[in-house]
């Protein structure tokens, strides 16, 4: 398989070295980290639903403003 060389600064190298398991190559480590990031994103339903209301973006912008107004109208009362 073709090999590629990347360079890391000292700090990044120390960080990544800490994550490497015994017997694991740096390539395996990078693949493991990427897989776990993908898995974490996959589990995040909000990321999966990004843009679900995009067709009604203007309506939801208005809703946001109404929410703010409604919240402002229900202030905790000042002491009498």
């Amino acid at each position, binding site marked *: 398989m073709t090999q590629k060389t990347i360079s890391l600064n000292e700090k990044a190298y120390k960080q990544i070295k800490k994550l490497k398991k015994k017997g694991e190559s740096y390539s395996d480590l990078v693949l493991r980290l990427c897989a*776990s*990031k993908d898995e*974490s994103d996959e589990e*995040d*339903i*909000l*990321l999966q*639903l*990004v*843009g*679900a*209301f*995009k067709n*009604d*973006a203007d*309506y*939801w*912008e208005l*809703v*946001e403003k*109404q*929410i*703010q107004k*409604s*919240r*402002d109208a*229900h*202030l*905790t*009362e*000042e*002491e009498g």
Partner: protein
Amino acid sequence: MNYLLDTGIIIGLLRETPIIVEKYRMLPQGRSTALTVYSLTELFEGINKIANSDKRDAQSKILKILIGQFEKKKLIFALTRLQAEDYSKLKIALERNGTPIPVMDLLIGTIAIDKNSILITTDQTHFKTLKKIAPQLNVEFW
């Protein structure tokens, strides 16, 4: 790291507000994000005001899918009995300071403080006021 999302952030993600989506994607890996029932009331209100019934049903389904996933992880919070006491103390402190804030903001802020979560919100004004009274509130303004 634990995050609590205010309503404006959830709407921003659903309607794909670029800056909110970008910042959300930058949150650390392994994070936990939670919602409050108070945000859900606001989101359902927004949906139930949609005149077109097909559209309303479709968006309601999406919201229920979202809620289902958060429920599975037990990451939808409401004020607990103990937090109710903290809420009242903060409310009194704000009132005595002459800086009342919206009830909804105080409910959400109290939960964020108690859960030691970082609150992510679009509302700078009121949560800045709350932070002055409760410096332990961790808040990010998007």
